[in-house]
């Protein structure tokens, strides 16, 4: 078998050295009741060719984003990733190395993490960022737990415009501890009044930016109210490319900013692996979960980098840790850093403008259809209210080879939202794609007599 180096004579020699007569001897502690004489009932080994055929057949059954007009967003976005990114992350020394616990021989990893932390902090307008978390949704939950630790209070006020999956994850994780989650409802046509829900037990208020219907909202006034109440403002960013164009959350008074970094450097990958971003103010540093990379010097006085402030983490504090997290999202954070380096700050701003321009074009092209646009404003995602049910429409358009966004009921199953459709446009969407979508929608609506 191609991944196993030993020959039968190797095994014989090694058993002799050990003083065992067979491998079975080495498993003597296994209870007889659990002893298996034969391999488990699964297929036996396969060549590369056979494996490729098998998995390619599964792959062929799926409709890929690059092959069709593609308007699906909802917390994961299709952006173009430069070829350099995928090449670099496949280098042996990045792909197959371990967590940098021995810093002398992992300065490569540590230095890119330091670069990553700087980029994230800068993009968010915050003072310090960690070396990544699993994804945006778990980072958001960790932020609420952190706010509870910092303020020593329990309640979290959650915007109705936070991604439903993120709300769901919070309910699952935070509902289990002492926290109380106060969910504002998802409303259209009016601004949320989250400040009205503040009281003396509020640890934090959580908002999304742009929100999950695609609308960027200025939360500076909310930040002031939250701070006056002694609470922290947590801002969640699910489309990090938006920060190329929108005012930074840190500049609007956010105390903790978390996000999903997938849009930069990482493909759609059917939902994972992604990369969670987490940043906060310097004064809350010790309450921040996750790995941190810091600068220092070595015995010769040369600058180097190490994992630091580890005593917050599980492998040292154990039951008093800030979180149980162990891995970060290393390789995905590297992909983010490389792409961000290739773009540069100005490049990200230009990319963001291109995204926004695509949506302006789509919205303009939709005007003759007189479909109601639920956003007062937008970045690269909008929510429409159709005169017909959205989910069956999306199925029909998929059958015609157009991936026409997400019916809101896919994320928030309520009869109130049956006609709502979420559409995203990134820089990969062409004029032809937009025309195709709009004419398909026009046909669908006229067939329905609308």
């Amino acid at each position: 078998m191609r991944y196993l180096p030993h020959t039968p004579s190797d095994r014989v020699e090694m058993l002799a050295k050990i003083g065992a007569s067979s491998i079975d001897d080495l498993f003597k502690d296994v209870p007889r009741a659990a002893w298996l004489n034969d391999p488990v009932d699964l297929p036996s080994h396969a060549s590369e060719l056979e494996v490729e055929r098998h998995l390619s057949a599964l792959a062929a059954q799926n409709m890929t984003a690059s092959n069709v007009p593609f308007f699906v967003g909802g917390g994961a976005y299709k952006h173009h990733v430069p070829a350099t990114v995928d090449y670099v992350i496949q280098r042996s020394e990045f792909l197959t190395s371990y967590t940098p616990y021995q810093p002398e021989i992992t300065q490569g990893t540590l230095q890119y993490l330091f670069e990553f932390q700087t980029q994230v902090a800068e993009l968010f307008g915050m003072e310090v960022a960690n070396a990544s978390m699993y994804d945006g949704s778990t980072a958001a939950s960790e932020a609420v737990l952190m706010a509870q630790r910092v303020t020593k209070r329990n309640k979290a006020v959650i915007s109705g415009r936070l991604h439903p999956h993120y709300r769901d994850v919070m309910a699952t994780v935070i509902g289990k501890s002492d926290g109380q989650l106060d969910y504002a409802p998802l409303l259209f046509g009016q601004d949320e009044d989250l400040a009205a829900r503040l009281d003396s037990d509020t640890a934090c208020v959580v908002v999304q930016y742009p929100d999950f219907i695609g609308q960027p909202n200025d939360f500076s006034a909310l930040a002031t109210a939250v701070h006056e109440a002694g609470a922290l403002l947590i801002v969640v960013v699910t489309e990090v490319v938006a920060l190329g164009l929108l005012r930074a959350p840190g500049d609007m008074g956010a105390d903790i900013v978390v996000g999903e970094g997938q849009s930069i450097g990482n493909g759609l990958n059917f939902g994972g692996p992604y990369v969670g971003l987490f940043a906060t103010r310097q004064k809350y540093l010790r309450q921040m979960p996750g790995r941190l990379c810091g600068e220092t010097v070595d015995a010769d006085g040369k600058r180097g980098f190490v994992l630091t402030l580890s005593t917050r983490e599980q492998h040292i504090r154990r039951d008093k840790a800030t979180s149980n997290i162990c891995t970060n999202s290393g390789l995905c954070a590297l992909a983010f850093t490389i792409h961000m380096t290739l773009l540069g700050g100005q490049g990200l701003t230009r990319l963001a403008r291109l995204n926004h321009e695509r949506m302006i074009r789509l919205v303009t092209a939709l005007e003759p259809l007189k479909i109601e646009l639920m956003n007062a404003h937008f970045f690269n995602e909008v929510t429409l209210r159709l005169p017909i049910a959205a989910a069956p429409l999306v199925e029909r358009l998929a059958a015609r080879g157009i991936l026409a966004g997400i019916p809101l009921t896919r994320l928030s199953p309520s009869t109130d939202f049956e006609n709502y459709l979420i559409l995203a446009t990134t820089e990969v969407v062409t004029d032809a794609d937009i025309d195709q979508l709009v004419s398909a929608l026009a046909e669908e609506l006229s067939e329905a007599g609308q």
Partner: protein
Amino acid sequence: MSETFSGNRGLQLEEGLIFEIGAFDKSGVDLAVPADMPLRIGVASREPIALPGLSEPEAVRHYVRLSQKNHSIDAGLYPLGSCTMKHNPRLNEKMARLPGLSDIHPLQPVSTVQGALALMDELAHWLTTLTAMPAIALSPKAGAHGELCGMMAIQAAIAARGELAHRKRVLVPESAHGTNPATAALLGFSVDEISATEDGRVDVVDLKKKLGDDVAAIMLTNPNTCGLFERDIIEIADAVHAAGGYFYCDGANFNAIVGRVRPGDLGVDAMHINLHKTFSTPHGGGGPGSGPTVLSDRLAPYAPRPFVRRDGQGFSLVEHADDAPEAFGRMVAFHGQMGMFVRALSYMLSHGSDGLRQVADDAVLNANYILASLQDVMSASYAGPCMHEALFDDSFLRGTGIDTLDFAKALIDEGFHPMTMYFPLVVHGAMLIEPTETESKASLDQFIATMRALVKAALDGETERFHQAPRFAPRRRLDETRAARQPVLRYHAPSMAAAAE
């Protein structure tokens, strides 16, 4: 005075930060010029982002130079205990990059991604069959996340019995990995430690004393973190179940028994599986991982959303609370680490059932070969045989003035990544060595010879070799105290190095 003018040493090249070598008006991406349209963003525009860019050649050079400072399993043995640093097959990478598996969005209509759901279902089948468990949660994003999943399922089962108010204690061995008590504490349980016997296993007498009707669960690793199989495990499972508790198994060491022993046959109720350990998905310098968690009949109803369900001819995804009222909730947005599912399934298909059993056999063989070859000169903490990893403590270094850390740093100069140090906490100055099955006999022999030579050097009083190590790595020992006392966690111009005097 530096040996060279450039500061480089042959192929070892010094490299600054992108903030020191890049420029704000440089970019390695050609983007169209955006049309000049009035913005409709509704909020103020971003201030210019103070992050530099690099052209493509500069970026490639920068990251390639960084990569050259890293050790990796592709380059050499990584004997890290409980990490299972095995070879990462490149076929896995090729498969994970098939557009049909990578260029698909989690929220596309389910009818357009039947192949992806079929793949998840097939992976689930392999994992549940290998473990003899009826159900699995695929969504946890890493091992620790899988622990959280398993313990939440247990918590949900206890709540369903109306016993949540009084079952608040979790039993954990002293030798457990830190994530175990951290996970229990996160869920509001108190943690009670169980002591070990002289031969490194859970003390069943102590365990039984600590059982009671207020115990929610035990969290055990098997083989345990000392590299030993818990021979009383069925008795332990029975005792915990009899007391009304549940058995969580940390699957980090599954590589020792995959294809040989099925945790379901041992009485396990929940076990996370680290795909980045046993199933070869790459460690990536710290992540991403993936921690699917298998569940017993008792816990299956509480498995979190989303999960794949067979629906007549095809597959659907159960995502909403109304469709799975007993599920304890959702652990993460979207569906889990699909990229790692593809890699792991590619690996499983390659090895097959027969190959996976051989994996465990060779992993255990290799660890025992190392134990047998070093136990005369180093202090093995427990008599063999061990499972897939061998544990030593630092008593063989007593009186030399050299500790486990020094020994490990000297190993770096010899071209090896050090073994796991100071874990588990139950022995002094622990050195935990897990070679994995992908090391050849020649590779093991070279490691063994080097270790024996280092031991001899230590006993011969060559303290400087150890105290000054590493001397040949890209960096000498780093000042971790300074990094913690004066944290510098991002670039600020000018950098710390300038102010360092």
